[in-house]
Structure formats: structure tokens, C-alpha cells
């Protein structure tokens, strides 16, 4: 039997990846352009990066975004792992359909609706909008993704290992901590990273739920983009893409090496 993709398959992959990466490559390339125009190459320069490091508003937005991302990702991962354990392990319990329904519902719900509904919640509760309201909102959005990631890992993990630990006298909690948790740790880490990057990325929910003094990076980028293409945005985008790509590829390499050793 012949293995390997056909010429058609190779073409599909090649064109598909070109489609996915060409715009990003162009964006990165023009962040090093000396000129202001995006169509004319006028020599290599780091001037837009220098401009970026003197842009106080942009730096503040980056700092806010990182704090919102780290905090909300931590909450989302904790809640998501709990939900995943319940969904993957508990079989049929009361409220299972409700929990799964809310998680998958929020996962596909258009962000404008999520943003609007969260805003109405904060208005109804009389909570002033700012750093904490964005953080809570992002935790809500990303906890659904975290659940899916951890649940997928739990589904492929043999529950009999945990039962064995319990037969050997561990309490359920000890069995979970010493057997299950180390096994799902990579998925928990992946869930945190996904939640963090989704939070870094979100414009719509942040616009609805943030207030003065808590402008996130996407909100800042968006207000600049409305004014037209600006090479400083290319520079900040390049840094963001570089950081995320390094993280994701690094995690993938570690996982590959583990898989080969196992």
C-alpha cells in the first residue's frame, strides 16, 4: 500500500500554509521597514521598535494585558480543571447536562453577546468597570477552553490507576494529587497557556467590560488601527507573535521529546 500524501495533498498543505503564514510574514517584515508605507521597502530599521519603547500608553497597555492574562488564566485553569474532572470522571451527576451545556455554549457564543451580557451583569451589580471586571470576564471565557483541554487529557488517562492507589489505602484526594494530577499536568499547563494567550488576544469582551485606566493591548491596537496602518503596530505585533510562537513551539518540542522517551 502506498503511503504519503498525493501531489494534490502536498499542494493543499503547501497553499494552505502559505495562505496562513504569508500575511503574518509580511506584517513582521514591514515592522523593520524604515519608511511609513507598507508597500515600499525603504531599508532595514529598528525605528518603530524605538518608537514603541517610548510610547508610554502602549507600554501601560502591555503591562495591564499581561496582568489580566496571568490572573484570569490562573482562575480559568483552576475552574476548568475542576469542571474537567467532574465531566470526565463523575459519570452522570445532577447538573452534568447544565454544566456541559454552559461550557460548550460559552465556547461558541459570539463574543459580542458574551461581552454585552457581562457588562449588563456588572452594571446591574453596581460594580465599576476596570481591571477586575475584565479579569473576571476573561476567566469566564477561557475557563471553557481550559475545560476542553484538560478533559481531553483525562479521557485518555486510565482511571484504574487512580483506583489502584485507592485500593492501596489512599484517600480520593491523595490519589488524585499523587496519581492523576502528575499525569494531567502537561494538559493543565497547556490549558493555562491557551487561556493566557486568549486573554492577550481578546478585543471584544475587554472593550465591553473594561473601564478607564484598564486599557488592554488589543484595545490600544484597535484604536490605532482605526486610524490606518501604522508600522508601530507592526512592531508590537511582531513582538507578540514572537513571544507566543516561542512559547508554543517550545512546549511542543518538550512534549515531543517526552513522547519519544516514553
Amino acid at each position: 500500500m502506498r503511503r504519503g500524501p498525493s501531489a494534490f495533498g502536498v499542494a493543499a498543505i503547501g497553499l494552505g500554509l502559505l495562505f496562513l503564514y504569508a500575511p503574518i510574514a509580511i506584517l513582521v517584515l514591514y515592522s523593520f521597514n524604515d519608511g511609513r508605507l507598507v508597500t515600499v521597502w525603504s531599508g532595514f530599521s529598528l525605528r518603530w521598535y524605538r518608537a514603541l519603547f517610548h510610547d508610554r500608553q502602549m507600554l501601560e497597555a502591555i503591562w495591564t494585558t499581561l496582568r489580566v492574562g496571568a490572573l484570569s488564566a490562573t482562575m480559568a485553569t483552576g475552574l476548568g480543571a475542576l469542571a474537567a474532572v467532574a465531566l470526565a470522571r463523575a459519570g452522570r451527576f445532577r447538573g452534568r447536562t447544565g454544566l456541559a451545556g454552559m461550557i460548550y455554549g460559552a465556547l461558541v457564543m459570539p463574543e459580542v453577546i458574551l461581552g454585552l451580557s457581562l457588562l449588563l451583569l456588572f452594571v446591574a451589580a453596581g460594580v465599576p468597570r476596570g481591571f477586575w471586571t475584565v479579569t473576571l470576564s476573561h476567566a469566564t471565557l477561557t475557563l471553557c477552553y481550559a475545560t476542553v483541554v484538560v478533559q481531553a487529557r483525562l479521557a485518555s488517562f486510565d482511571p484504574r490507576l487512580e483506583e489502584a492507589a485507592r485500593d492501596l489505602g489512599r484517600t480520593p484526594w491523595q490519589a488524585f494529587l499523587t496519581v492523576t494530577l502528575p499525569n494531567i499536568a502537561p494538559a493543565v499547563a497547556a490549558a493555562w497557556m491557551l487561556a493566557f494567550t486568549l486573554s492577550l488576544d481578546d478585543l471584544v469582551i475587554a472593550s465591553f467590560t473594561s473601564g478607564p485606566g484598564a486599557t488592554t493591548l488589543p484595545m490600544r491596537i484597535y484604536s490605532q488601527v482605526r486610524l490606518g496602518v501604522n508600522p508601530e503596530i507592526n512592531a508590537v505585533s511582531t513582538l507578540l507573535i514572537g513571544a507566543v510562537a516561542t512559547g508554543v513551539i517550545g512546549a511542543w518540542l518538550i512534549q515531543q521529546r517526552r513522547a519519544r522517551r516514553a
Partner: protein
Amino acid sequence: MRRDRSGLAALLPYAWLLVFFGFPVLLVARLSLSDTALAMPPYAPRIDWSAGVAGLRAFLAGLDLETYARLAADRLYLDAYASSLRISATATVLLLLVGYPMAWGIVRCRPRLRSALVLAVILPFWTSFLIRIYAWIAILKPAGLLNAVLGAAGLPPVDLLNTEAAVILGLVYAYLPFMVLPLYAVLERRDERLVEAARDLGAGPLRAFWTVTFPLSLPGVAAGALLCFIPMAGEFVVPDLLGGSEPLMLGRVIWTEFFANRDWPAASAVAIALLATLLVPILLFERQPRRVLG
């Protein structure tokens, strides 16, 4: 057998989602029945708790379908509704046409290469959505890179930015990973022996694919289509950055009603109308193909 108490782990996330997801959606529904008012927050009626039961009754009496009637009478909203569904349906079909061959090609590679290719497809999903759409502005604008390339090849320039075609292109670009992954997941788990059996019985490779592989991959097709169609119908960033003032999509209408017109009841009514339309695909998504995502 021991009693499994893992269900208790659900308590905290369950309560969280009720407070931050379930209840707020009800608030949107309630607000869509209210009227705009010159107040902060800008809607009426509000519950007067000090008046007790009478206040609650007055509040309920103040709710009506006036906002919906107002929206239904306005062509703008109906057009936005129709174009949202048309654009996301078109983009879903295109995504299938682009994504299926990619997923199929990846599945046929050696395992190590396969894993690298899957990473290559996922990686853009991790990098900022907003930035990836922004990248297209520089390509599509009248004096952009696309026209520079077309001009160099002696072809006439095209003006794509701020058209429906640009929005569809942007949606296909942004949602491609969401289409390829579920398709890849079902195709990877396919049983190669079924295809071999078809071949042994005399089917050509195309016929074997069309009568065996493709029907078996339909759960992945359904999962990918729903996973893309539902959020695309309410998409804001893509139509806003690549679509200009036309075509209007519901996500942008909600945004504009809320931020520019400060008409909160209208924004809520549009959101509820969108939600009601998406309810069927959302329920379908929750039922059948979710294991495909695992």
C-alpha cells in the same frame, strides 16, 4: 463499588458559570424588553425594590416587545441579519473546500511530520486574531501589496478592502484552524482497512474516497462547520476592519448600537435575535460532534 464524589468538583465551576454566563444572558433578554431612556444606565423600567411587590409588578408591566417591533420595521436590521447568515454560510462552505484537502493531506503524512504540520496549523490560532486581520489591511488596501503584485504582473488592480469579498476572505483566514482540526481528528482515526476493502472490491481511489472515507468523516465536517459558523455569524473584528461600512453584520450592529448610539435595549434585542437563530446550531454542536474535539 465506592461512591464516586467527583461530581462535587463541578460545584465551583457550575456556580461560576451561572453567575457569569447564565444569569447575564437572562439580563440581556430582560433588557431587550425594556425601552431606551435618558438615564444612566440608559434604559427603563428598573425594579424599584423599595416599593416591594408593587414595584416588581410595575416593572413587569413596563416590559414589552416594542424594541423588537422597532427593529423588525427597519430594513437596516433585516439586511444585517440576512447578510450575517449569508456571509457566514459562504465562508463555512469555503472553509470546508480549503480545510478538507489540508486535513486529508496532513493525515497521509508520516507521524512526525504530521504532528509538526498540525502545530503549524494551530500556531496562527494562538497568535492574535486582531493582528492577523490587521495584516490583511496592508495587503488588500487600494495601494496595498496585492495591487502592487497585480500591477507588476500587468494585471488590472482590484479594490477589495471594504467589500463583502474581503470579509469572507478574512473569515476564512481567521477560522481555518477551527475547520482543519476537527476534520483532522476524524480522518486520523479512520480505519484504513475499510478503504483497502473498497479497493479490493474494485473501486478506484476517488470512488473509494467518496463512498467510504468521506461519509465516515461527516461528524468532523459537522463539527468544523458548526464550530466556524456560529461565532462567525456574530463576528465583529473581521467585518469592522475589512468590511468598512458595508456589509453590515449583526456583531457590528450590536457594537454600534451599544457604543455609538447608546441604545442598550436595541443592542440587547439584536443579541437575543442572533442568539435565537444560533440556538439550533449551538444545540447541534453540544449534542453530537463534541467528542471529535477531544
